[in-house]
């Protein structure tokens, strides 16, 4: 079978399979409502970030000159809303309550980095209640605000029938960014147990990410110089750099506070 024949056939199948599909009839109204909410949230978060940055700048004094010399502009990159983590049994340290996680980040974060907004703390589930294992606080440094994501995940995920972080513990995957640097983290035996990744999309948003397998689970931490819930090509840049460097993030994921939690 030739490639041309395959291409032709795939085109035919896609056309036939999708030709009768229609979007939901209420899509225009839903999209409009969601767009309005996003616009309102964005304006509110920038106002809050501006106030926090001004307050921090007043405290920072001589350090204010560090960074922030780059113009803020719309970026083309990717952001984040903490995914609603799936936590099947068994329970473990990855079930740490979001409030405890925020407190841990506040304790671990280097001098000059302040948690100004803990982000959503309620579980994104029908039952509601306190979220566990995932946070997305807003951080402010002298260079400006940004967002952090910390996700605790059980593992190996494949055993639990979910697509988990173990699929991308190393640097094997390809990124959609236009500049990506990735370095694998090895244990004493030379096994890949995580990675440090820095990705820049187009001309704006930068994501720093460190993932580390620990004690039967995984600690994931990523920060970006954008306050968007989801980093995307249209995410506005909020600072010259993400709030935490790769070293800061590695220090965070290696901290024993995460694996010491007992549900």
């Amino acid at each position: 079978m030739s490639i041309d024949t395959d291409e032709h056939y795939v085109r035919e199948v896609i056309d036939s399979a999708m030709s009768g599909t229609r979007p939901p009839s209420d899509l225009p109204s839903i999209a409009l409502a969601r767009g309005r909410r996003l616009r309102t949230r964005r304006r509110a978060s920038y106002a809050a970030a501006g106030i926090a940055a001004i307050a921090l700048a007043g405290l920072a004094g001589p350090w204010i000159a560090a960074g922030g010399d780059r113009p803020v502009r719309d970026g083309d990159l990717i952001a984040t809303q903490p995914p609603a983590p799936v936590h099947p049994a068994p329970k473990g340290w990855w079930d740490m309550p979001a409030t405890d996680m925020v407190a841990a980040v506040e304790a671990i974060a280097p001098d000059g980095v302040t948690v100004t907004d803990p982000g959503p703390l309620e579980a994104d589930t029908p039952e509601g209640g306190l979220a566990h294992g995932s946070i997305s606080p807003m951080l402010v440094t002298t260079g400006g605000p940004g967002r952090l994501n910390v996700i605790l995940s059980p593992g190996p995920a494949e055993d639990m029938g979910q697509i988990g972080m173990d699929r991308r513990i190393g640097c094997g995957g390809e990124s959609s960014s236009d500049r990506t640097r990735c370095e694998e983290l090895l244990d004493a035996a030379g096994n890949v147990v995580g990675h440090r990744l820095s990705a820049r999309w187009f001309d704006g948003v930068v994501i720093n990410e460190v993932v580390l397998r620990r004690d039967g689970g995984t600690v994931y931490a990523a920060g970006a110089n954008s306050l968007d819930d989801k980093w995307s090509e249209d995410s506005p840049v909020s600072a010259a750099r993400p709030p935490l460097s790769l070293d800061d993030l590695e220090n965070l994921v290696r901290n024993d506070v995460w694996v010491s939690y007992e549900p």
Partner: protein
Amino acid sequence: MRASTSVDEEFTAFVASASAQLHRKAWLLTTSSSAAEDLLQSALAKAYVHWRRVSTADDPTAYVSGIVLKTFLSEKRRRSSSEVAVAEMSDSAAAAGDDPELRMTLLAALRDLAPLDRAVVVLRYWEDHSVEETARALHLSRAAVKNRSLRALASLRTQLADIREPIPSQEGTR
């Protein structure tokens, strides 16, 4: 207030006219009707926030189509830690389709592809983009697009074998 109303009206009209095409793309990328709706809503919300830029683009539909693609890729990257693989058991969101069974088979086959491979298939074989255009959209090299195309076609050939009707060999025709 008048400007806001005008934007809302323009945006609503745009969604009404372009949503069928965008929805199909989202569905092919996500292989799930519910995920497609969420992806499309996310992309459209971003388009609304940046409506001035979208509405003045040469091709607003293509512009938003690009947002759909990039939102898909970024969410795939960010959410792979919490995603649950679920079989799409029903096709209710598009029950009016001509061939739901074929669609289910196609979506199941696409689901077996890596997200980036799936994006290559959608751009190359559904939107008919060239290798160069696809490479540019996905920030891949031309060679990477070709390799991913070959890999995806090989997988689809196997997955779709059961429904495939004999097609006369066109070997050497291009």
